[in-house]
């Protein structure tokens, strides 16, 4: 087993970045914690610490991908997690830049109340009915506005 002092040093150096990534990819703090702890338990069993730079973050991505693959479809959509082949792309970091661009686009180009609806739905996890109540809108109108925003963003990034 790996020397405990080496393990602790490795843990303290990398844990924050690893848990951050796992939380982003899984959208569940408890699951993310499990993933990172499991990785360190495996590292602890090895005789030597991982030598490759970025090994631990790659291990997080792979472990998260495995978790998502094992989830039921309903569980995935609840946390808005990628499905099928898209999971591979998104979790391996291929679409990270685009995710940031989407966020910037929303803030810069969406008009109100579209922008607020978008943020309340994806940042605060409110349902359409809750958003409608909060913004004093008709639920059907709220649905329409959100659908319009999604169409607009898609059209922009399709270019």
């Amino acid at each position, binding site marked *: 087993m790996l020397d405990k002092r080496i393990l602790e040093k490795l843990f*303290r150096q990398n844990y924050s970045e690893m848990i951050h990534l796992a939380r982003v990819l899984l959208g569940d703090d408890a699951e993310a914690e499990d993933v990172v702890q499991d990785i360190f338990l495996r590292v602890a069993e090895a005789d030597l610490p991982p030598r490759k730079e970025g090994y631990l973050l790659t291990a997080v991505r792979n472990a998260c991908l495995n978790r998502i693959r094992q989830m*039921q479809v309903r569980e995935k959509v609840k946390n808005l997690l990628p499905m099928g082949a898209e999971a591979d792309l998104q979790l391996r970091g291929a679409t990270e830049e685009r995710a940031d661009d989407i966020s910037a686009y929303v803030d810069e180009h969406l008009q109100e109340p579209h922008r607020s609806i978008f943020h309340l739905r994806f940042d605060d996890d409110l349902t359409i009915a809750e958003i409608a109540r909060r913004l004093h809108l008709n639920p059907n109108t709220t649905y329409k506005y959100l659908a319009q925003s999604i169409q607009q963003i898609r059209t922009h990034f399709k270019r």
Partner: protein
Amino acid sequence: METTKEHILRLLEMLDNPEAYTEQEIEDIINHDDDTREAYNLMVEAKRSSRRRKADAAVDVDGAWQRLEQQLQPRHQNLRRMKIAASFIGVLFVSGIAFAAIQLIRHTQQWSPKTEVVVNDATPINVAPTDTLGNDTLVVQPVVYDNIPLKKMLAEIAAHYDAKVTFQSDEARELRFRFVWNPQQGIDQVVSDLNQFNCLKVTLKDNVIIVE
């Protein structure tokens, strides 16, 4: 026919309440067409981007390390137990080899005289030479030579006392009789015992057993 916008509306409705749909219905809604699937993926990315902004919150590394330590403890204990068990197995294994070796030596040492010595003896007596095993670990038994040529018998006895044997008569070499040798006795006593046989005259000179 439903438009893309209507499909996205259905997708949004489903995402608000996935419990109301079966697994198959959920998949069918998301994969209805490329536009709906892309809309879902876009929402996934938007959500991920949102999580990334939120995930900058402070992380309790100390607490996480303590939780890991708690999980490691039973593993360390199990490993320690396994190591101790492995050590025991190792000791037993080595002991087993040593025991087997002793048994083998005993068997080998006992076997050679027995095959020839105890030809007509119903109650053979075993021997373990004193130069092989210490007196404290083994009681040396007398050896019975029965119907064994004297040349062979004396060769073994002389070897035990680190002596030599000289036959002055060829006839004496082939003599056969029953003789009980106690290795714990001195060589002088053995010579004396041999001289009890009328047909033999044995002397000891300069650590050489001379048979006339």
